[in-house]
């Protein structure tokens, strides 16, 4: 009798545990996963409202209309004024192809469908929804167009932003596609080996090469690690493996500043080993590697190797931005911005304001610090070194007359093809108004040669035309 009852109770408890797990899973699902699940183009609910609501327009920071919806007698259809130019920022919104980029992630705002909080629903009932909200972007159309023209014909990405507010003035990724002819070109687009649908600025992961030395230098300064009077012979041996400079000639006696200005690999490799992977990793993470970067579009996480067995050759490679270090161009722009902005990295922003159909601004972004990458003194030292990079070092092609420009070149060895050409920088050095990151994928030449001039031109254009 007793045993029987015990067993019965055991089965009862078992079933109750099953039920409780159901409740837990449901709650977990609702709290953590529901939102991500909803935003799926197969979810007809996203479209149900489209037919009745005038989808909001998207405009640049100066009010120029980039995308809007028009009524053709039966339904609304979407018009993209500038085709390829905003394919990776605005994306597209079509019934049979779904939604992408801002059209997807700001879908509710564009249709003015708010979350089901009681107050909002009540509001909705009193005043039924017929028109969505307008998105005002931080993008400057002129700069965006200018930047894309400079990159034309190549593969790569450009991110130009305001280092003190985080506003993105231009974000270009090539190759791109034309949302207007999406339907006709769909199979070509999807099968293209160069992935035109990929937004390289936020989803492309590359080895940063020498541009990463900026981070290593920061770590060395903060931890007071120095190699003293170092003699660079153009090559150094780490654990039996040779590590060379780009031209292998050797820089002679050189200090940290010199190593940065002339991009000396052996110096940084050895200094990095002396620093140790932990300290280097700590600084890298303050510069947002291995971290989620909050943004209006999903950004791939950059990675810095700090787990498992890390040997000397790994540290050496990481110190010069090779090996297992992978970054997105946006991350590099944030690094440049951080140094420009007294050591504080601001949250990158694409959407400046949300404007209701009545013209009222119902939401506007607030500049936010997402990481104090370094202190103001170290940032200043770095800044001065980077000015020298442009004045007398590898970044001469980024010089602008009458303006102090800070920068760093990079030529990343690419295991699967030609080297990538990088440039990161900001100007004017004393009071930075623009920070930039440029990458030319598999360019085959150095960052100084090819990436720096592009960056310079864009910075000049930005300083001349953007004043708000």
């Amino acid at each position, binding site marked *: 009798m007793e045993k029987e009852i015990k067993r019965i109770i055991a089965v009862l408890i078992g079933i109750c545990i*099953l039920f409780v797990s159901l409740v837990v899973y449901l709650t977990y699902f609702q709290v953590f996963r*529901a939102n991500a699940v909803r935003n799926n183009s197969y979810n007809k609910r996203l479209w149900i409202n489209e037919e009745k609501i005038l989808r909001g327009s998207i405009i640049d920071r100066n009010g120029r209309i980039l995308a809007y919806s028009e009524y053709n007698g039966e339904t609304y259809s979407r018009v993209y004024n500038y085709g390829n130019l905003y394919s990776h920022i605005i994306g597209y919104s079509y019934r049979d192809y779904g939604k992408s980029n801002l059209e997807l992630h700001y879908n509710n705002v564009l249709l003015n469908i708010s979350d089901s909080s009681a107050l909002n629903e009540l509001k909705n009932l009193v005043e039924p929804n017929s028109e969505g909200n307008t998105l005002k972007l931080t993008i400057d159309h002129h700069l965006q167009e200018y930047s894309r023209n400079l990159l034309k014909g190549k593969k790569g990405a450009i991110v130009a932003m305001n280092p003190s507010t985080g506003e993105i003035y231009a974000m270009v990724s090539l190759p791109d596609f034309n949302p207007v002819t999406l339907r006709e070109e769909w199979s070509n687009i999807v099968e293209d080996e160069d992935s035109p649908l990929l937004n390289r600025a936020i989803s492309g992961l590359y080895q940063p090469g020498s541009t990463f030395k900026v981070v290593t230098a920061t770590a060395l300064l903060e931890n007071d690690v120095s190699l003293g009077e170092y003699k660079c012979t153009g090559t150094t041996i780490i654990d039996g493996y040779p590590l060379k400079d780009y031209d292998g000639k050797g820089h002679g006696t050189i200090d940290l500043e010199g190593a940065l200005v002339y991009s000396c690999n052996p110096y940084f490799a050895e200094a990095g080993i002396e620093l140790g992977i932990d300290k280097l990793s700590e600084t890298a993470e303050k510069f947002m590697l291995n971290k989620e970067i909050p943004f209006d579009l999903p950004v791939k996480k950059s990675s810095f190797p700090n787990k498992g067995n890390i040997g000397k050759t790994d540290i050496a490679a990481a110190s010069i931005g090779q090996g297992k270090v992978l970054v997105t161009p946006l991350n590099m722009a944030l690094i440049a911005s951080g140094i420009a902005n007294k050591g504080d990295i601001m949250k990158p922003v694409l959407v400046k304001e949300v404007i209701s159909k009545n013209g009222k601004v119902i939401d506007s972004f607030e500049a936010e610090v997402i990481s104090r990458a370094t202190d103001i003194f170290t940032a200043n030292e770095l800044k001065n070194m980077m000015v020298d990079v442009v004045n007398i070092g590898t970044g001469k092609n980024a010089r602008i007359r009458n303006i102090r420009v800070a920068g760093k070149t990079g030529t990343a060895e690419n295991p699967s093809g030609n080297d990538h050409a990088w440039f990161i920088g900001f100007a004017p050095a004393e009071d930075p108004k623009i920070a930039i990151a440029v990458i030319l994928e598999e360019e085959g030449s150095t960052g100084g040669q090819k990436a720096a001039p592009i960056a310079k031109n864009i910075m000049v254009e930005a300083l001349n035309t953007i004043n708000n």
Partner: protein
Amino acid sequence: MLNKGINYRLPRNLLFVFEMMALFLMFMYYRSTLDKSTIIYGLSLIFIVYVSNLILSKIVSGDNYLFLIVTMLASIGIIMIYRINHEQGIKQIIWISIGIVLFFVTYFVVKRFKGWENLFIYYLSASIFLFVATLILGKRFRGAVNWISIGGISFQPTEIIKILAILMIASYYTNYDKFKKKKWGNYYLIGIMYLFVFFLFIQRDLGSVLIFCSLFLALQYIYNENRKLVFANLVVLIFSGLLGFAIFPHVKIRFETWINPWKYIDTIGYQITQSLFAISEGGFFGTGLGLGHPDFIPEVSKDFIFSAICEEMGILAGIGVIMLFMILVYRGFKISINQKNKFFRIAALGISILFGIQSFIIFGGVINMIPLTGITIPFVSYGGSSMLSSFIALGILQVASEELDIEED
């Protein structure tokens, strides 16, 4: 005694208020297409439910909560079904009404007659007969063969077999001493279990396979003295489960769809992903009846009615339904523990386990916590066979909740 009466009034009245409000809301929702008959149906159901609960509390000496809980569940179900599909709603009202009648009939019949525990052979042969009939006459519906159509009326034999199986197991263990004496008597039940599972497997009714296996295993675990046998059984079942997964594609595909439904979103994963969309739409309080789109889910009235409830009435309502089932199962177990008559004790246990496992499997399936199987939610899902058999089972459970004599013959 007086105290009892007053306390039962509260939930009964709450249920009444709930149903009236729902009826009103449905009236408003369908106001353009409504005809008098719907109001009549609705009011009749509310009346029947109220009166039944009232009668039960007065007449029956056993448990009253069972019926209350069940009618609340049925009400929630009916609201959702009616909102989705007017005609199905009316049919469901009819099924519930017949179900309630069957409940009372079962109650009185089972209580009146003795000797239920001696009908082992009849339970067994009826089950096998139904299985064979299904194989011969059965129609395939969405992959599983579990419907029989006779002269315009279609029903699911599996629903009846479930109850027969429980009664069979109960009678087996009640008369265990007799069975033990026979040759192989010990293994009768296990053999029958494998036979049933085999039939169900051929029918491709994987959900029922799961139910029957759990039912058999649980009851065996409690009542079979040979512990090694129970363990061996478990091992064999798990092993054959894995084997089935490896060999049969239709098992494998269920698993793959469960792990990543998004990959198969426009083929086999369509239903479950639509279900997930619905659930994520509602938030905690739901979108409000009639304001969501549960109709985007194919076949929503049957297995996915739970997703519809989560969408329009909220996760909280879904949790409420789960809690109601939990209480129902708990009550069933308590009844079984208190019942001294061995046959009814096991029967009550079996029925409670059935309700519990069946609802868990389908809830878990539609929220994608476990792989999806095509079985119904007792009392809530649309469907005559399911509703009627559930009420019959409830009737037996109700009998088991009273004090009965231990018959020695």
